[in-house]
C-alpha cells in the first residue's frame, strides 16, 4: 500500500522532555483511568453477586429467556474487533496509513454490529415486558424476576454506552488518520483508544457468562 501524502510531524507538548516521555505519561494515565472503570463496573458486579446469592432461582429462570446464541455472536464480534484494533495500531507503527483506516473501519463496523444484535435482543425483552420493576409486565414470571432485568438492562446498557463512546472515538481517530497525524513516531491516541476498546471487550466477556450462561 502506498502513502499518497506525507504524514504530519508531531510536536511534543512543551512540558514533556521528548516523545517517549509524552507517550509513557499518556499510557500511565490511561491505565489509571481503566482502573477507575473497573471500579465503576465493579460495584455493579457486587450488586450482581448480592442478587444472585439472594435469589439464585431468578437467574436460572432468566437464563431461559435470554438467547445465548445472540450473546455468543456478540462475544465473537467483540473479540474480532479487538483484533482489528490491534492491527490498526500495528499498521500505524509501520506507516501504513490506508491499512490503519481500513482496520479502524472494520472495528467500527463490528461495534455497530454488536449494537444491532443488542437492539434485537432489547426489542424482544421489551416486547414481552421483561423490564425493570416499574415497567415489568411479563406474564407468568416469578415474583422477583424484575430484579434480574433491572440489573441486566443497567449493566448491558452501561456497557452499550461504552460501545457508543468507543464508536465516537474511532470516528475521531479516522478523521485524524485522514489528516496524516499518525505514523511510526506518533500513534498515542490509537494506543489509548485501543486500550479502552479492549477494556470494553473485556467487560462484555464477563457479562456474557454471568447473564447468559447460568444454568
Amino acid at each position: 500500500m502506498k502513502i499518497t501524502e506525507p504524514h504530519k510531524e508531531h510536536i511534543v507538548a512543551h512540558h514533556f522532555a521528548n516523545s517517549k516521555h509524552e507517550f509513557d505519561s499518556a499510557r500511565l494515565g490511561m491505565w489509571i483511568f481503566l482502573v477507575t472503570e473497573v471500579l465503576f463496573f465493579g460495584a455493579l458486579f457486587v450488586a450482581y453477586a448480592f442478587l444472585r446469592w439472594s435469589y439464585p432461582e431468578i437467574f436460572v429462570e432468566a437464563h431461559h429467556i435470554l438467547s445465548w446464541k445472540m450473546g455468543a455472536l456478540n462475544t465473537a464480534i467483540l473479540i474480532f474487533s479487538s483484533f482489528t484494533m490491534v492491527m490498526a495500531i500495528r499498521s500505524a507503527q509501520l506507516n501504513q496509513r490506508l491499512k490503519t483506516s481500513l482496520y479502524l473501519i472494520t472495528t467500527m463496523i463490528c461495534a455497530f454490529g454488536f449494537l444491532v444484535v443488542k437492539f434485537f435482543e432489547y426489542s424482544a425483552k421489551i416486547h414481552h415486558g421483561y423490564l425493570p420493576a416499574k415497567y415489568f409486565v411479563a406474564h407468568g414470571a416469578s415474583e422477583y424476576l424484575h430484579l434480574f432485568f433491572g440489573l441486566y438492562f443497567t449493566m448491558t446498557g452501561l456497557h452499550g454506552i461504552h460501545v457508543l463512546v468507543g464508536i465516537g472515538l474511532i470516528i475521531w481517530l479516522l478523521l485524524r488518520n485522514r489528516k496524516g497525524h499518525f505514523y511510526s513516531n506518533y500513534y498515542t491516541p490509537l494506543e489509548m483508544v485501543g486500550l479502552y476498546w479492549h477494556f470494553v471487550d473485556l467487560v462484555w466477556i464477563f457479562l456474557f457468562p454471568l447473564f447468559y450462561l447460568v444454568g
Partner: protein
Amino acid sequence: MSESLPGTNYINAVSGIKSWLTTLDHKRIGIMYLLFIAISFGLGGFFALALRLELLNPGQLIVSAKQYNQLFTLHGAVMVFLFIVPSIPASLGNFLLPIQLGAKDVAFPRLNLASLYLYVFGAAFCVYSMVSGAADTGWTFYTPYSSTTDTSVISMTLGAFILGFSSIFTGINFIVTVHKMRAPGMSWFKLPLFTWSLYATAIIQVLATPVLGITLLLLIVERLVGIGIFDPALGGDPVLFQHFFWFYSHPAVYIMILPAMGVMSELVTTFSKKNIFGYKMVAFSSIAIAIISFLVWGHHLYVSGQSDYADMIFSFLTYLVAIPSAVKVFNWIATLYNGEIELKAPFLYFIAFLFLFTIGGFTGIMLASLSLDVHLHDTYFVVAHFHYVMMGGTVMAFLGGIHYWWPKMFGKMYSEKAAIVAWFFIMAGFNMVFFTQFILGTKGMPRRYYSYLDQFQPLHAFSTVGTWVLTVGFLIMAFYLVESLLNGEPAGDNPWGSLGLEWTTQSPPITENFADTPHIIHGPYDYDKVKLS
C-alpha cells in the same frame, strides 16, 4: 513559549477573560478553582447560618420542617461535593504540585482544564436542584427515602456524579504528574510532604470515586425505572445502598483530610526552620491512611443491622487508622522541639489544626467502639466529631495553606494583624458552635431534628451564637485578603525563608514556573544542612 521578560508572570503574561477560560496553565486553573471553591464555601456557610438560626429555639423560627431538611441537605452536599473534596487538591494542589516537583505543568493540562469545566457543570446541576425543589434526603441520599421523596434528588445526584468525574480526572493527573514529571534529582524521598499527601489523596480519588458514581447512577435508575436492588418492597436491600455509599464516602473523608495533613507538614517545617521529624514515616503514613481508609466503611453501619462479626472487624480496622494519624501528629510536635518558631498567621492555623484535629480524632476513636456508638449514633456528638475533623482539620489547614502560599500565588502580603484577629474569631466561633454539640450529643440530642426538648435550648442557642462569631472571622478574612490583592505590599520571592522549591522561583511565578529546569540537590526541609543566603 518565549523567554519571559522581567516583571511578567502567569497572571499578566496574557490578558483577557478568554485567556483565562482557555488557559492550560495549572496555576491559573488552580486560582479559578480557588475562586469557585470560595464561592461554594460561602454558599454552604449561608445554609449553615440559616439552619443554625432555625435551631435557636425549639419551634418554628424562619423555615418549615421540610425547608429545614432541605437546608441541612444543601449545606452537607455543597460543603462535601463542591467545597471540601476539591478544596485543597484542586486549588492549592493544582497551583503547587508541578512547582514542587520542578515541572512546567501537570502531565495532562487539557484534562486539568476539563476537570474545572466538569466542576462548574456539576455545580450547575446542584444549583438547579436548589432552585427546583431542593433535595431533602441529607447529603447521604439514603434509600428508600431518596427513591421516594418528591424533591429534586435526581439533579442533585447527577451533579455529584459529574463532580465525581472532575475529582477522578484531577486524581489521574496528579498520579501521572508525580510519577512522570519530577525534575532531575527529585527522588521520591526528596518530594515535599504536601506532594506525598496529594499523591495518597489521588489514589483514593481514583479508586473510591467511581463507586460513588455508580451508586448515584443506580439511585437515579431506581427513581426512573425501579431497578429494585435498594428497595425492600421489590426484593432489594436498602443496606446495600449504605455499603455502596460509604465504600466511597469513608475514603472520601481521607480525600478531605490527607491534603490538609500535607499542608501541616509544610507549615511546621517552615515556621520552626527544622527538618521534619521522621520524613519517611510521615510520607508512608499518608499511604497507610489511604490504604486503611478502604477497609473501614462499615463503621457507619453499626446500627443498620449488619452482622456482629462485621461490626467487630470494622471496629478493629477503624482503630488502626488512629496509628498513622497519630504518627503524623507526634512527628509534627517533635519537629517543633528546639525549633525557631515564628507565630505568623499560617502557623496559627497549624496550631488550630493540631488541637482541633486531635479532638476530632479522639472522638472518632470513641465512635469506633461498638458499645459507645450504639449510644451516640446519629446524635450531635457525631456532628461535632466530623466537624472537628472536617472544619477543625481540613478547613484550618486550608486557611493556613492559603495564608502561607498567598504571597507566592499573588505576590502580595496581607495584613498580619487583621489575620490574627480573624484567627481568634474563627477559633472562638468554631469551638462555641461545635464543642457545645459534643455536650448536646451526649445528652441525647439527635441530629437532623427540626425541633427539640426545651432543656436543650441554652446549648443550642450558644451554638447558634457561635456561628455568628465564626461569620465575623470569615468576613474579616475576606476583607483583608481582597484588600491585599488591591493594595498589598510586594511579598518578595521567599517571605518566610522556606527551603521549599516553590519559594526559589519568583512570586508570582512565570508561566513555565522556572526560568531554567531546577536540579534538585537537597531535600525540601534540610534546614540543618542548607543556609539560605
